[in-house]
């Protein structure tokens, strides 16, 4: 009876040991399988051709042994289940790789919350890089137009301020009056003459485009400009200095 029990125990012991020795690891976690003797030529991991292969195999070390080698593997299981590592190895012709079982478990650790299933959603009406850029550019453009309009209004308002200031005629009146009586200094007389010439070159584009000498000829014959220009010539340049009784208001009429 005892002998029978010992016999049963010895017969079952290797089976039990084989069941326990299957290395196990969770999906995605590295699993070391060390010191596996494989007789024959050198064994290599099969190259991965696609993403469907459930194991990722690396040969970490090969130690030479009698008629073969002892191998150290690192394996990552990508799909839960029982696998045979030998199927993912390649060996030279004539070499038979023994079965190397391993198991990949897909069970999450206890207490972890599973993510809920995603639901179908709708794309927003406004979205995407291009739409965003168009929106930003439009806003920028609108801002720029706003600034320009604001400045235009401001300059127009400033212009109104100028318009409400003294007119050219009002500015010229005291100077022309003094010039007609010879009461201005040389500097002031020179400035007065330049002021009048400059005024017409600014006011009239047909005079502004002419060379200065031609502009002067035109000014001396122009019905609007000539009276004051010729009067200034008489007062400022003629040797006699005679000042005919010109009506200053009449001379200044085109400058009002």
């Amino acid at each position: 009876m005892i002998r029978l029990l010992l016999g049963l125990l010895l017969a079952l012991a290797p089976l039990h040991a084989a069941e326990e020795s299957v290395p196990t690891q969770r999906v995605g976690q590295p699993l070391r399988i060390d010191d596996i003797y494989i007789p024959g030529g050198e064994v290599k991991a099969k190259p991965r051709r696609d993403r469907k292969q459930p194991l990722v195999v690396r040969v970490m070390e090969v130690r030479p042994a009698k008629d073969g080698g002892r191998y150290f593997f690192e394996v990552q299981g990508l799909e839960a289940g029982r696998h045979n590592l030998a199927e993912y190895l390649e060996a030279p012709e004539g070499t038979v790789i023994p079965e190397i079982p391993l198991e990949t478990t897909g069970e999450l650790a206890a207490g972890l919350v599973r993510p809920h299933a995603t639901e179908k959603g709708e794309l927003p009406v406004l979205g995407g890089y291009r739409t965003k850029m168009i929106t930003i550019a439009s806003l920028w453009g609108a801002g720029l137009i706003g600034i320009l309009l604001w400045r235009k209004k401001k300059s127009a308002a400033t212009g109104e301020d100028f318009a409400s200031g003294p007119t050219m005629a009002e500015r010229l009146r005291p100077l022309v009056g003094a010039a007609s009586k010879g009461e201005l200094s040389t500097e002031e007389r020179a400035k007065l003459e330049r002021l009048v010439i400059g005024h017409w070159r600014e006011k009239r584009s047909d005079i502004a485009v002419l060379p200065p000498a031609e502009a002067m000829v035109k000014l001396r014959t122009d019905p609007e400009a000539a009276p004051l220009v010729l009067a200034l010539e008489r007062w400022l340049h003629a040797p006699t200095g005679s000042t005919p009784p010109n009506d200053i208001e009449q001379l200044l009429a085109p400058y009002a």
Partner: protein
Amino acid sequence: MSSVHTPISETAEYLQAIRQRVGTIVVGQDVVVERMLIALLTSGHLLLEGMPGLAKTLLVNTLARAMHLNFRRIQFTIDLLPSDIIGSEILDERTGSFRTHKGPAFTNLLLADEINRAAPKVQGALLEAMQERKVTIGAESMPLPTPFLVIATQNPIEQSGTFELPEAQLDRFMLCHRLGYPTALEEEEILRRNLKLGVKREGAGAVARTEFDMIKEEAIGSEADLIAAMEAANHVHVSDVFLKHVVDVVERTRKHPELELGCSPRAGISLLKGSRARALLHGRDYVVPEDLFALAEDVMLHRIRLTYEALAEGKTAAAVLRGYP
């Protein structure tokens, strides 16, 4: 006409008659004639820049005949010597002594054609004569005739093999006028006149007549009239305001950021003298800003030099002077 007290109107009429006489021979160069008269009345010298064939020689020749003045022309070339202009001492084999041979500089109106083709030494000899109005031949110093006016020309298109006048020598020219092409109407008139020239008999044969054959021999007025006109120009009134304008204009060229070389005081003097003569030519006894503006470019443009920066930006001296951006 008498001298100093000749009324302005009479002097202006005399000068106008000369302009009209020149106008009967040369078409459309009234501004150049005015510049020549200004130079003559103020004892200045004139530099003309322009293409060949613009009747420069004809113009000077006509003016000289109209004013009873002597006229000589020198074509400047690379092998010209100073003695070819001012003259030299020649050994007289019969007497065994040197006699002075006066060069073409001894004239009233001297046309120095293409002055920039001659070597600097020759240019220097002429410019010295222009400045001092006398020349030294051997040991003898001889005054040049009065009036003495040099009208030099420069051809702007043929610059290879030329000796450009340096700024200091350009400054000796009171005015530098740029001759333009005639307008289409003027060109038509030139051609019409040319058609009527015909031929003239010479000796046993005949030759085609040129514009030079049309120049009238009799002069307008006399030497005394010219002297009176010169004195009248010298008496044209210049106001303090005008002086102020001249000083300001000249000073601006010296302070202008785009000008490396501004105008010399000689430019201001030329502007003043030229304005006086122009006023007289226009029948005024006083100058006005129009005279200043009309002559500013001719007086100042050849006296200024642009900076490298302005040249690199493609600016011209005329544009800077006119105040263009």
